[in-house]
């Protein structure tokens, strides 16, 4: 028995494991190493999570501790991403298929993806702490939940939109050939949604680095919480004034962002190209060195073969199961029952939430509201000023990069990495530097907002400049337009739709930044300026729920109003008058 086991399973496994070493197939070795690494990481995380809750963890500032912290932060982000993806698949699918749910869920998703979520982190946090008072799991889960709140909405919205815009003929073939809903989801809907989902995943993961600083270290009431991770490492480094450790952390983050870009996003984007429904258009073959290597990997080929064999052996389902399946595919009684009760649950939760919020808001006094409104005005003007400043330099530079094929090839990936580097990581350090130079927080706030939002703009403008048709550029040259005329007649109108998209993202980012930058606490001193972001943080520190609810909701309302009144009309203008593809 044992011999047979050794011969078959063990022997094969050893063969498989040693084959790469014998044949020096480096990529297989890498795959193996990654497997071992993942196992080790899981063990470490398990140990960490089940430990007894310690409100503050001693963070070691040595460079050798960094890989561990990086790993813990990474695992948090990955776990949050998995939750977000599951949320996306379930909620967006539900919203797309059930008209009643659609009417409630879609506006909620739309608002959630545009409001500054950092303002809503404190209440979520307080909730999680009361749910898990004992072990570290509560803290970890709340950190993960915080990250989920900054990842899930845009992904869900993108998936919902893909489901809604599935081309009619693909829809028709899947019903013509009798796909069940599961088959349709697997073979048609998810593939069709993949490019949008991949793009939004990149945005979401980049967002989660931005939120890491706040998710790993927070003050609530009189308690301070800290989880071991890259964010808290940076916090400690700033508090203790260790420049060396700050540089370590920044370099580590940069390495992480670059590695993710090279090892994850590029292969994934290259792979997702095949899901692009783009008949006739020029398709970038989208090759990536890592994807190529993987395609050469024997280990992965073997796994794939095993999977195919399993598929091959699959026996057909008996007729009665299939029948039952078809029953379910129609608006089944069970399905609609579940959906209805879930709907009722959501509505109940919403009204309960609204009720308690109204009760909380009633406690806020009139003068306080006035102060909050003024603070909102101050923050809004900072947000707009920073967007304006960022546009001022990114517009010419972006146009120049985008229209020079050579430079856009060279710089695009740099810009992409820069855009996903979380500027929140260096806010605190920079503010301290600025204040030692005698620059007030009011001004440095704006500068930091520029820092965190300029990349979105630059990225979009480059994309817009690349999309300017060659014949229009040739025409402007042929008619001898001056540079200024060319900008005014062609370049600016042509990139306008992209600019609007950039502005929307940039102002969203700037609002989030306002929460981190308007108030900074270090061991020696607290710096603060007047603004809505500062009000949110103060309310959290004082543990004053009415004040917190009022300032967070006011910020959300400001953003939503601004979207409806300014960005939506601008979008419409961009679509009707300045779209080049009509």
């Amino acid at each position, binding site marked *: 028995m044992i011999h047979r086991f050794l011969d078959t399973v063990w022997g094969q496994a050893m063969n498989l494991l040693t084959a790469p070493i014998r044949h020096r197939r480096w990529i297989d070795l890498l795959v193996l190493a990654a497997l071992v690494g993942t196992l080790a990481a899981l063990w470490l995380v398990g140990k960490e999570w089940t430990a007894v809750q310690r409100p503050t963890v001693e963070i070691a500032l040595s460079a050798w501790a960094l890989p561990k912290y990086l790993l813990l932060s990474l695992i948090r982000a990955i776990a949050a991403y998995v939750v977000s993806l599951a949320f996306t698949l379930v909620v967006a699918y539900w919203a797309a298929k059930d008209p009643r749910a659609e009417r409630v869920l879609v506006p909620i998703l739309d608002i959630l993806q545009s409001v500054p979520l950092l303002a809503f982190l404190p209440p979520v946090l307080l909730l999680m702490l009361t749910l898990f008072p004992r072990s570290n799991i509560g803290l970890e889960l709340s950190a993960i939940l915080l990250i989920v709140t900054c990842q899930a909405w845009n992904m869900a919205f993108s998936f919902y939109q893909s489901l809604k815009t599935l081309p009619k*003929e693909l829809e*028709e*073939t899947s019903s013509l*050939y*009798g796909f069940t809903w599961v*088959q349709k989801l697997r*073979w048609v809907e998810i593939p069709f949604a993949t490019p949008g989902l991949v793009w939004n995943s990149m945005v979401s993961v980049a967002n989660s680095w931005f939120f890491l600083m706040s998710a790993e270290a927070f003050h609530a009431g009189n308690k301070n919480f800290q989880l071991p991770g890259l964010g808290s490492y940076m916090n400690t480094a700033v508090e203790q004034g260790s420049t060396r450790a700050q540089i370590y952390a920044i370099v580590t983050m940069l390495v992480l962002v670059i590695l993710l870009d090279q090892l994850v996003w590029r292969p994934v984007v290259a792979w997702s190209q095949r899901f*692009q429904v783009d*008949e006739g258009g020029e398709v970038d073959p989208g090759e990536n060195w890592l994807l190529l290597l993987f395609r050469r990997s024997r280990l992965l080929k073997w796994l794939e073969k095993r999977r195919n064999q399993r598929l091959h052996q699959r026996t057909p389902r008996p007729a009665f199961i299939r029948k039952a399946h078809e029953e379910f595919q129609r608006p089944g009684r069970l399905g609609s029952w579940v959906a209805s009760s879930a709907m009722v649950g959501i509505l109940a939760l919403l009204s309960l939430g609204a009720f308690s919020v109204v009760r909380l808001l009633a406690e806020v006094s009139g003068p306080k509201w006035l102060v909050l409104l003024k603070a909102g005005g101050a923050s809004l003007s900072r947000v707009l000023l920073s967007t304006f400043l960022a546009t001022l330099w990114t517009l010419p530079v972006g146009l120049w990069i985008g229209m020079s094929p050579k430079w856009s090839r060279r710089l695009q990936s740099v810009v992409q990495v820069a855009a996903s580097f979380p500027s929140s990581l260096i806010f605190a350090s920079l503010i301290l530097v600025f204040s030692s130079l005698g620059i007030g927080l009011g001004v440095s706030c704006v500068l930091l907002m520029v820092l965190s939002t300029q990349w979105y703009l630059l990225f979009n403008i480059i994309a817009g400049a690349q999309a300017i048709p060659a014949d229009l550029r040739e025409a402007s040259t042929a008619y001898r337009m001056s540079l200024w005329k060319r900008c005014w007649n062609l370049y600016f109108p042509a990139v306008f739709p992209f600019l609007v998209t950039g502005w929307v993202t940039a102002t969203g980012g700037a609002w989030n930044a306002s929460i981190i930058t308007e108030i900074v606490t270090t061991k020696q001193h607290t710096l603060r300026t007047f603004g809505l972001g500062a009000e949110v943080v103060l309310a959290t520190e004082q543990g004053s729920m009415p004040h917190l609810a009022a300032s967070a909701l006011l910020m959300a309302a400001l953003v939503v109003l601004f979207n409806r009144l300014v960005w939506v009309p601008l979008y419409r203008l961009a679509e*009707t008058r300045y779209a080049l593809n009509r």
Partner: protein
Amino acid sequence: MQLPYTSPICELRGVQMRFPGPRGGVQRVLEDIRLEVRPDEILCLIGPNGSGKSTLLRLLAGLMPPTQGEVRHHGEKLDGLNPGVAMVFQSFALYPWMTVEENVRVVLRARDLPEGEVRERAHQAIRKVGLEGFEEAFPRELSRGTKQRVGVARALAVDPEILVMDEPFSQVDALTAEALRAEIMDIWADKERNPSAIVMVSQSIREALLMADRVAVLSGSPGTLRTIVEVPMARPRDSRSPEFMKLVDHLHDIFTSAELPDVQVTAPIPSAAAQEDQVEPLPMAQSGDILGLLEFLETQGGTSDLFQVASHTHVAFEKVLTTVKAAEMLDLVDTPKRAVLLTPLGKRFVNANMDDRKDLWRAQLLELRLFRVVQEMMHLEEGELSEETLLQELATRLPMEDPEKTFETLVAWGRFGELFAYREERGVLTPE
């Protein structure tokens, strides 16, 4: 070659199809259709735009239920998908993320066949259309003709009794279409195997006559079945044989008498009060195309044949038909039988300079009640008529038409005649 009559595979009985139109109207697409699909036949559907050909195919496939009447499959009323039908789409409808092979296999997997059989049948189907060697290719790597082959292979893989094709060759270049058509005929000709029947929407009379045993002629909105023409010729058919030419002529006559009846289209001055609200539906033709038609007629000595126009100008027949209808409505051409000839007014128009042309055009527009209504409305609204108001008006006055499309044509004609200006961004019409 008249086949002995056997019971039909499928039957449409008194089928009527209506869709909810925009702005609360009802769009009548098909009206009282009776049609059967017999074993071992090729049935072609021809008709102008908006005669509901594609809708008819979708009803047959069971993709949607008819508003009234029923679709029967082997005598049983259809409830849901038609089990005997596979469909080939005009736009191919291939899944771009699947290889050729996967595109075919996926429809077999949906039927829960064991994996071995899935592979075998997919392989057979791919071989049948001559795509061996392309199994691993993605649709984007293929030419349009090859894509449509994959579409055909996918349909054949499920072994359908009826192969339904919606203008399968219209997006494929002429030579490839010829080859593909011949191959499909060969596959169909094997009486031992499915598909037993082919039902196909065709955009050319010649194509229909080359393939079909019966040609069903539909006429325009709402779509009704005008007649069914039997094609008793042995295959392969020669499109230059006198017999063939005679049938082409016959179909041309049916077509024109249905679409351009020899009665006055624009009734002169509505006399009765009952006709107060009646306005004429506009054929969706571009003013540029109408001008082009007149110029072409001028080069032909002022007279031509409807089908000559189509073949000489390489414009799709349906478009020529719409353009001729529009020109006739404006009294610029006349259409006795199949001939198209310039009216005296039309001659004056062609020979005039641009300014005079615009004057003539404007005068002709104001002969139409619809444009007089618009002018009146503009006057009532003190010179600024909103798009929304006009669309509402169009929807009530022309319940059978798509108001957005009518509006588009109306604006284009009116702009050319300098009757009014339209500002898209503000959505208003103002007098010139």
